[in-house]
């Protein structure tokens, strides 16, 4: 049994981290108007009077976004609120067309959930405070060559992103290390990809995460002063940024200093965090219920229906792979750790019986080649049917496992059918006993020493003889048959 919620103490300090993650939903249209979502489109081409905040316009809720957010809340084991409303969050900034953001406040879509994060030798249960829905802002583009606001004469605004549905997932301060924070985000991303409600691309900004970090002396129940870290825009930067911040704070506290409550920016070039603004500059957002929208009521029947729509999630899948297919925990976790692998695996299992063989290929050669070429599984030229037909060629003795590796490589790069690759290529395994006997006789004749050893019961010697046969056939001999024939002839 894995250990639960282990205590992590470093140099007498405990790290306390809470995360706020923003996920852009992959709905067809924006949160409150009919504009298409448009990553990468011509600036300001996907806008209308509503998402530009023109006078007199009104928001209308995108129902799909509500459903997506509820799915996320359910998958995070949250209580889905039967009555939920939107609030206005008021502050001035040029990327916000109305100078208020329609968001949620005290009645979010979901609350009080958790996500179990597998840390290998222990599991960290991270409490989910809330899952709420809001609209994204536009994007400011600073015109200077560095793209930094301080080095630009002017800024321009692209409102294409304004109004994109955004789910914010806030954790309890339950995370105890930078590594846990990273693993939480990996698990959260995987979960959301399973739900198929966002593409969760950190590069494109559809998954963004800010962290609240503090340290406290081991054994202390009270919280240290926290800082909020922004710009943690990849898994690697998240871990490195948080590691830096934790050691920075521990350094301050252990030398008798005080951490200042502030928002800090992670700089991935210097690998440090730098202050952005202090608490005194914090906004009073003047939240109040959005009067342009009506409350959303979710009845029991609807909630039940939505629960049924939640697909099998990684944890459940992993358990099933172990019980139904006899996979090891390690294999099951690997495959379910990425929805694409799980789907590929399941596709194979519809056509083929040997789960372990499929798992081995997926985890071995297949993932190695994908990594080498920086491809996603879905972009690969190999589909489930092709992999299975290659496995069947191995099973029937047509190719050796060794030859299969080069066949696989050709399949990977050219997308050719495995049967086609081996036909006429001379790669096909020699399983003709007559042909093999001729070669084996020759090997026995020219290697009297090892033959004598084998006769004396030194079983190891057979390896050498088989090797000789393989060398003469350029690896095409069926090794099982070669073994059999040698033993028959010598004993």
């Amino acid at each position, binding site marked *: 049994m894995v250990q639960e919620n282990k205590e992590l103490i470093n140099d007498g300090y405990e790290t306390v981290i809470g995360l706020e993650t923003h996920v852009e939903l992959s709905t067809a249209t924006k949160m409150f108007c009919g504009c298409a979502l448009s990553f990468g489109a011509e600036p300001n081409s996907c806008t209308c*009077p509503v998402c*530009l*905040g*023109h*006078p*007199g*316009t*009104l*928001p*209308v*809720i995108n129902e799909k976004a509500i459903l997506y957010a509820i799915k996320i809340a359910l998958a995070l084991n949250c209580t889905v609120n039967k009555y939920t409303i939107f609030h*206005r969050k*008021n502050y*001035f900034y*040029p990327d916000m*067309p*109305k*100078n*208020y953001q329609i968001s949620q406040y005290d009645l979010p879509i979901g609350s009080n959930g958790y996500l179990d994060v597998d840390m290998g030798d222990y599991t960290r249960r991270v409490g989910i405070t809330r899952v709420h829905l809001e609209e994204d802002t536009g994007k400011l583009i600073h015109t200077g060559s560095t793209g930094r606001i301080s080095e630009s004469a002017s800024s321009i*605004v692209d409102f294409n992103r304004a109004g994109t549905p955004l789910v914010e997932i806030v954790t309890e301060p339950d995370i105890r290390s930078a590594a846990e924070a990273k693993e939480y985000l990996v698990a959260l991303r995987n979960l959301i990809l399973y739900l198929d409600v966002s593409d969760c691309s950190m590069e494109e900004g559809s998954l963004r995460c800010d962290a609240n970090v503090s340290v406290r002396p081991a054994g202390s129940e009270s919280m240290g002063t926290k800082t909020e870290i922004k710009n943690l825009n990849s898994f690697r930067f998240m871990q490195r940024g948080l590691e830096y911040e934790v050691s920075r704070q521990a350094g301050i506290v252990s030398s008798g200093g005080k951490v200042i409550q502030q928002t800090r920016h992670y700089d991935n070039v210097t690998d440090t965090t730098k202050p952005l603004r202090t608490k005194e500059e914090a906004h*009073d957002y*003047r*939240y*109040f219920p959005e*009067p*342009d*929208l*009506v409350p959303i009521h979710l009845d029991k029947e609807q909630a039940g229906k939505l629960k049924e729509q939640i697909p099998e999630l990684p944890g459940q899948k992993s358990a099933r792979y172990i019980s139904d297919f006899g996979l090891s925990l390690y294999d099951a976790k690997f495959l379910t750790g990425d929805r694409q692998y799980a789907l590929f695996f399941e596709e194979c299992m519809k056509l083929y019986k040997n789960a372990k063989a499929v798992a081995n290929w997926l985890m071995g050669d297949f993932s190695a080649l994908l990594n080498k070429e920086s491809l996603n599984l879905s972009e690969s030229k190999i589909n489930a049917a092709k992999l299975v037909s290659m496995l069947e060629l191995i099973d029937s003795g047509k190719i050796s496992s060794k030859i299969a590796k080069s066949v696989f490589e050709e399949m990977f790069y050219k997308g050719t059918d495995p049967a086609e690759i081996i036909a006429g290529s001379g790669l096909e395994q020699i399983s003709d006993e007559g042909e093999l006997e001729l070669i084996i006789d020759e090997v026995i004749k020219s290697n009297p020493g090892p033959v004598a050893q084998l006769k004396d019961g030194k079983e190891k010697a057979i390896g050498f003889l088989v090797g000789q046969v393989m060398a003469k056939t350029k690896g095409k001999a069926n090794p099982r048959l070669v073994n059999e024939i040698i033993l028959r002839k010598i004993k």
Partner: protein
Amino acid sequence: MELPLNFYPAHKLNKMLRQKQVSASEIVDAVICAIDKAEARMHAYLRVESKEMAQAAAGFDSKSDALAKNGSISDFCAIPIAIKDNICTKGITTTCASKILSNYIPVYDATVIKRLKAAGYILSGKANMDEFAMGSSNENSYFGPVKNPWDLERVPGGSSGGPAASVAAGTAICSLGSDTGGSIRQPASLCGVVGLKPTYGLVSRYGLIAFASSLDQIGPFTRDVEDSARLLNVICGWDENDSTSIGSAEAGSQDYTKYLGCSIKGLKIGVPKELMVKEVDGEVRQKVNEALALAESAGAIVEEISLPSLEYALSVYYIIAPSEASSNLSRFDGVRYGYRNRDAATLRQMYKKSRAQGFGPEVKRRIMIGTYSLSAGYYDAYYEKAQRVRTLIINDFNNAFKKYDVLISPTSPSTAFRIGEKAGDPLKMYMSDICTIPVNLAGIPAISIPAGLSSEGLPVGLQIIADTLREDNIFRMAHALEEAIGFDSHPMYLYK
């Protein structure tokens, strides 16, 4: 004396158009002629569409035979209607009578404008108002006040002073205004016309530049109750662009004219004593009582009632409306449209200077009150508490409507006051809406109809309030009282 065409109600003009007794050009000419004579003294319009009106009328006349043949001369075909300048008209400046939107040209039509266009209306122009609909005298317009057509020294009421004055003076046949705390009914009362605030959500707010979203409602100004019902027929109904609009795509539309000419025998009228407060002028009180007597003699039952929480309505309103306004008006920042200060060196300065120079004093006052009410540490004591008292007010009305079909009160405690008389005293000014504000807080419908003229020759208005979506009761009572009162005065002196 024969009334000129521009003083006819739309339903009469429509009948004449159908019977070819009049052409659209003749109607429009009469309106343009009145505008030429009176508008400069009255300032009811911020923009007059004379040329476009004439063109539209000529266009109508050239195909009127064909239109008549296939029966498509609908109620407001070729009728010149003034639109309050906070209702978006595509391609035509919509300023909210504010410097900050003085150059703003909407890229879309409000839903009510789309519906009027489909009905064939003619836009006479954009009507003057208090800046962002904040005011009760129309003295808060950046472009200068509107004068009351009955006495040019006096205010027309507000905030829809322009829409009210234009109908009263015959410079429009009807108009649309907006009512957040009385902004249709109070000027209708002071100008001697009919002004209706429909049930919240009955008319789409899409395209109405928001003052206080939970209170705002568009409604018609007309010469009589029949026009009011007909114009409501055109503008009401569910709108997919307004989440707070009532009904659904499937629900059919109402015909409010079927409640006209009905007997009011047995209808129960409640007279809330909280709306007959000491601030109500004696003459106003007398006119209302005369009307109540007329209702009684027509068979209605009149009883005095009490709605105790109405006492707090004004206080509640001046928390909720400014709170919503402070947020609604934050989009006016000089970034994307409207007035921008060009001397600012920083973003913050641009915001501050554009807004400081773009908004007038009353708008700033309300933004500050609202911002304060919503601030951390004050929210519970102000906004939250106001919402709770609002619920009490709603409950009071609900209870009253269990027993009564309509409630009747004065619309405004006084007749039109002099320009400048209350301008320096916001609290005194706010009292002008004491009878109308509770209605907005409850989201229920109410109408103001003329109850007669005071001894000074100024119109007195009477308010009829009904339960949610009971416009039927409003029209029943209003039409009966209109006939009984027989108000038929117009400020004809303007044209002598």
